[in-house]
């Protein structure tokens, strides 16, 4: 009898472990896609949780549609750039749990609401390293408009290299493949040369 119970328990444990491994694999695949700059995956991810985030924010925090949209975008951008900047390199839970946990912090931060029935999210402790103020930080950059204007003047291949890296989130390997550089090291060197060229243009423009 005991053997049977153990056996049944083992089967359930195995199933649970398999399911957990599957979620882990899918989550890490999302991280890889963001790091490697796959725009379609990022767009799909945005749509995948948009509706459920709105419903969740309304149910637990009484947040209206417009506010939920704003908070979702801030949570999404935080999630995206924390992965892109290497602050999140792996996740022990699903990307949805992370995204919603960031959203929860942002709701609290901006609206000072007390959760009505918020369920505890186990990953919150892991979010200590997440930079929630990423948007505010970048919004304070005064020269970004000048940079954008000069990018239009810099010419090729610098325009493509810098745009692909900083705007489209592509890594050097993909940029090398796209622009026919033999190695990613050559692409990285080109990026650095372009950066210096942009710096010279900034000097000329007096920014």
């Amino acid at each position, binding site marked *: 009898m005991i053997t049977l119970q153990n056996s049944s328990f083992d089967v359930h444990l195995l199933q649970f472990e398999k*399911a957990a491994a*599957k*979620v882990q694999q*899918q989550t890490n*695949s*999302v991280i890889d896609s963001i790091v490697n700059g796959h725009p*379609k*995956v990022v*767009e*799909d991810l*945005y*749509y*995948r*949780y*948009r*509706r*459920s985030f709105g*419903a969740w924010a309304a149910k637990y925090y009484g947040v209206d549609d417009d506010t939920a*949209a704003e908070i979702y*975008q801030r949570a*999404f*951008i935080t999630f*995206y*750039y924390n992965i892109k900047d290497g602050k999140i390199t792996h996740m022990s839970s*699903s990307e*949805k749990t992370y995204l919603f946990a960031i959203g929860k912090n942002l709701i609290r931060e901006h609206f000072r609401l007390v959760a009505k029935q918020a369920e505890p999210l186990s990953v919150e402790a892991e979010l200590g390293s997440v930079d929630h103020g*990423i*948007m505010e930080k*970048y*919004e*304070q*950059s005064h*020269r*970004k*408009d*000048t*940079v*954008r204007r000069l*990018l239009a003047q810099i010419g090729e291949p610098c325009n493509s290299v*810098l745009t692909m890296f*900083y*705007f489209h*989130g592509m890594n050097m390997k993909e940029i090398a493949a796209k622009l026919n550089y033999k190695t990613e090291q050559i692409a*990285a*060197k080109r990026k*650095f040369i372009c*950066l*210096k060229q*942009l*710096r010279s243009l*900034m000097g000329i423009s007096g920014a």
Partner: protein
Amino acid sequence: MEADKDQKIQEYLDGSMSQDEKLAFEGLMNTDAELAAEVTELRELEYDLKAAGVDSFRSKMDQWEQGYQKNQGKNRMRTFLAIAASIVVVLLAGYYFTGQQGSSAEKLYAANFVPYEDMILTRGEPSATGSQLVDGMIAYNDGDYTIAAEHLEQFRITNPDNKAAALYLAISQTELGRYDAAERSFNIAMEDPNFRQQAQWYLSLMYIKNHKNAEALGQLQAIADNTDHYKSAAATELMQQIDLLK
């Protein structure tokens, strides 16, 4: 010499130096003000580029949000139109049900058809990460049933155990008038207890659209007889409307 200096700056900015190399380079910057200024300027420039990149990403998200809102509006409008059409059908039943059998079936279908809500993407099921499924469901939500059917058919080939996808595929096939394929897909969806009732309801609507009233009535009777069925009352009402078609 200049090339070597550039190489070092590049490695420092890219974060590809070892800890020892990094410390040595920072020591060099402490004694070389010109080098330190150059590194600072380049780092600030990278920061500005990142900031402009965040703006660009935000614009992209705004477009996605607009697409989402448009889709939501479309769904609300679709529901509204279905209800309005239902009222019109009931009010004008006498007119439509005399001598206009073919078009009445279409109208009866349109009046009762509301696309079943997306339970796959909205619930964030782990299985939703298959891109065929995601693309299919996004198209389904947009009312683009041709694209939805294409993606969902592909997804079903590689994921035959996913019966939920079969339901959305069947609904898409019904909308496209591919009735035989739709019937097969509905029967697969019925194998999943979570989607059996929905599959029964939409199968009966498909029969109505395909002018198979006897089959539709058989399905609807089974639904009406099951008082726990979420469409039990609606099935009874729909059977009465079909009777008016005769």
